[in-house]
């Protein structure tokens, strides 16, 4: 057997071993010192920091994989849920629209209810049509001869006078609004009781033939006088402008209608 020759390579191994022993001793010393002082060991702190980072990374990856897997597994169920929710959403939207319509109808009915209470023979009608061209101010309502409506019946809406019936069919009637050129209603100012004739002017109503000495004011209310079409006291509108001329016997009041004639829905026809 040949004697072992201690080489340069063996020397390096020995030095490395000694270095490891010294490092381990150093670490043990640090650990023992930290344990004695009751504080955290720097070695433990570094080690746990790295470990926690690794744990976080691994947990995130595992969580992601699990959620993807779970999602893939739940796809058939989700599709079913989605279909059911869509159907439910559609049903709820339909119900919502129906409820909105009912609320609107109830509000419209409620608006004309006081008129019906006042005139029990009144016929509640819906506005269903408008003139084909814009030159006349008429509307079509959904009641006619079958409901006992006749020409020249007065029509009231929420707030006051709407107009009068000018043509009657079996199931529908045409109402000339108070703003139509053909409309003429005996009118009276609520303050002062001055008489005049309310005539349509397409956009507004002009109360003509009011005595020149009547001290009219902007904002004065104009109501119907007793006549063939309307009972007295129904609001026509309020004065927006006054036209006076020293050379004439009468003055004219421009009146804004009490009823929003552009948004008519339900009206009451006053049968004679």
């Amino acid at each position, binding site marked *: 057997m040949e004697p072992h020759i201690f080489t340069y390579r063996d020397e390096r191994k020995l030095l490395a071993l000694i270095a490891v022993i010294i490092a381990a001793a150093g670490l043990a010393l640090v650990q023992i010192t930290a344990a004695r002082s009751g504080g955290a060991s720097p070695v433990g702190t570094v080690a746990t920091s790295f470990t926690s980072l690794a744990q976080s990374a691994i947990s995130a990856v595992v969580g992601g994989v699990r959620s993807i897997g779970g999602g893939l597994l739940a796809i058939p169920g989700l599709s079913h849920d989605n279909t059911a929710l869509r159907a439910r959403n559609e049903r709820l939207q339909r119900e919502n629209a129906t409820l909105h319509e009912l609320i609107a109808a109830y509000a419209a009915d409620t608006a004309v209810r006081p008129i019906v209470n006042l005139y029990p023979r009144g016929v509640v009608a819906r506005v269903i*049509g408008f003139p*084909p061209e814009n030159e006349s101010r*008429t509307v079509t309502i959904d009641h006619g001869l079958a409901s006992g409506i006749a020409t020249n019946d007065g029509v009231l809406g929420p707030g006051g006078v709407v107009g009068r019936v000018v043509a009657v069919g079996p199931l529908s009637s045409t109402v000339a609004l108070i703003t139509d050129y053909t409309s003429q209603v005996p009118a009276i100012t609520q303050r002062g009781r001055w008489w005049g004739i309310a005539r349509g002017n397409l956009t507004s109503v002009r109360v003509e033939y009011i005595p020149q000495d009547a001290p009219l004011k902007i904002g004065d209310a104009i109501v119907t006088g007793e006549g063939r079409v309307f009972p007295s006291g129904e609001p026509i509108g309020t004065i927006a402008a006054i036209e006076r001329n020293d050379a004439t016997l009468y003055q004219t009041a421009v009146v804004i209608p009490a009823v929003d004639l552009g948004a008519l829905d339900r009206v009451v026809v006053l049968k004679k």
Partner: protein
Amino acid sequence: MAGPRWWVAALLLVGALLAQTTLLHLATVRGVAPSLVLVIVVWYAIAVDTRRAAIFGMFAGLTEDVFAATTGGAWTVSTTLVAIIAGMLSRGFFADSIPLVAAITAFATLVRALVFWVVMAAQGYPSGLALLHFHQALLQMVLNAMAMAVFVLIVRRFENRT
């Protein structure tokens, strides 16, 4: 001159009337809506002879008077007259030219408005309303010409398909 079938024009007229009495008041520009009835009348009138144009215009105007209830015969007279004029005008031109048809529609709108208010004045309305409503007629002239251009394009597409 053959022109469109009368029943097609009649169906279109009924559709136009229904649209005007129910929907178009919701789509006005400064209180003015296009007159689809006039568009149909002019479209039909320029494609047929004057006699048929006059009859169609008379029925169209009559139905408008019936719906309006307070206009007497003003729409009947004005629309018949406009149909006759449109029918006569188209004889020397190509009836399917969009600029020409739109121009005839614009002219017809003004003439119809003028005749309408003259007849209304004759029926007891205050005179001078044609001037008072002139700005509305001008706006409607533009709207009607545009509506006619769109209508002719749609008709062309249908004709190409068939």
